[in-house]
């Protein structure tokens, strides 16, 4: 029975793919990326829940960006870390991020182009 269910769910996924297929090239062309620190230090500080909040907020606002992770980068005390990289722009790092902070980071920084300065702990210009 569970096999039938799995097949049904796979069908559902195939349908989702058909619907979403047109939008992909939009995402690829923007080059914007969100990176969550997922080393031991990140996970222990709650990075998995931060990533969940990012995915949920992107889905809610129907925003298409690449989401990925990185291991320990040596700023363990500032975890969970979240970076926003924009093509031709800067790479901005947020520290001690919790899920409640994510909607504002996405709205202000990603949508409106204004980084949330009080939460920014690092920045690299001209990636």
């Amino acid at each position, binding site marked *: 029975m569970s096999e039938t269910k799995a097949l049904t769910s796979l069908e559902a996924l195939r349908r989702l793919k058909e619907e979403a297929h047109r939008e992909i090239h939009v995402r690829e062309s923007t080059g914007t990326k969100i990176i969550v620190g997922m080393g031991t230090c990140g996970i222990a500080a709650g990075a998995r829940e931060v990533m969940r909040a990012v995915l949920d907020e992107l889905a809610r606002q129907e925003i298409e960006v690449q989401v990925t992770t990185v291991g320990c980068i*040596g700023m363990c005390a500032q975890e969970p870390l979240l970076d926003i990289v924009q093509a031709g722009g800067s790479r901005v790092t947020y520290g001690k991020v919790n899920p409640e902070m994510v909607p504002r980071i996405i709205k202000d920084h990603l949508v409106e182009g204004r980084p949330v300065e009080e939460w920014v702990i690092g920045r690299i210009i001209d990636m």
Partner: protein
Amino acid sequence: MRELSEHILDLVYNCIEGGARSVRVAVIEDSRADRLSIRVSDDGRGMDEAAARRALDPFYTTRTTRRVGLGLPLFAAAARRCGGDVEVCSRPGEGTTVSGWMRHSHIDRQPLGNVPETIVAAILSAPDIAFEYHHEVDGRCFTFNSSLLKEAAGDLPPSHPAVAQWLRAHLAEGIGGLGRLQAIGH
């Protein structure tokens, strides 16, 4: 770490950083043996015997970003405080298997927690790795293989909201369908 599923994500991340092309996770819950086992194996770079032994030492690491390793020792501590232990088997060039077990009913045992979220994060972290998750509860099994996702979602990336949501629901249904463990000792 507050949940065993966070340890699992951490172990899988070790596999990713160890150059794995495929990663298999098995969680086995057995009420008769009063045991919960977690096994994570990969086909990555592997380690020689000395390095495998030192992998459980918190002050050993190959990383350069931090002077302590921490991940595996934390998992070993979680297992040992619940009457269990962790073993690391590895061969250079062949891969690594980390096996941990603990008393299922132990009062200090961390909950398994949010396994679907761990798998979503693992697949997002390394979309090109072949990933398998196997879960047994008193002999009832659920297995998820990332090739299913590839086949159905095609070139839609796993971070696409629709794919992540589908994956989460699919896993929650599969793991939920395993039901609960029988009362320990019966």
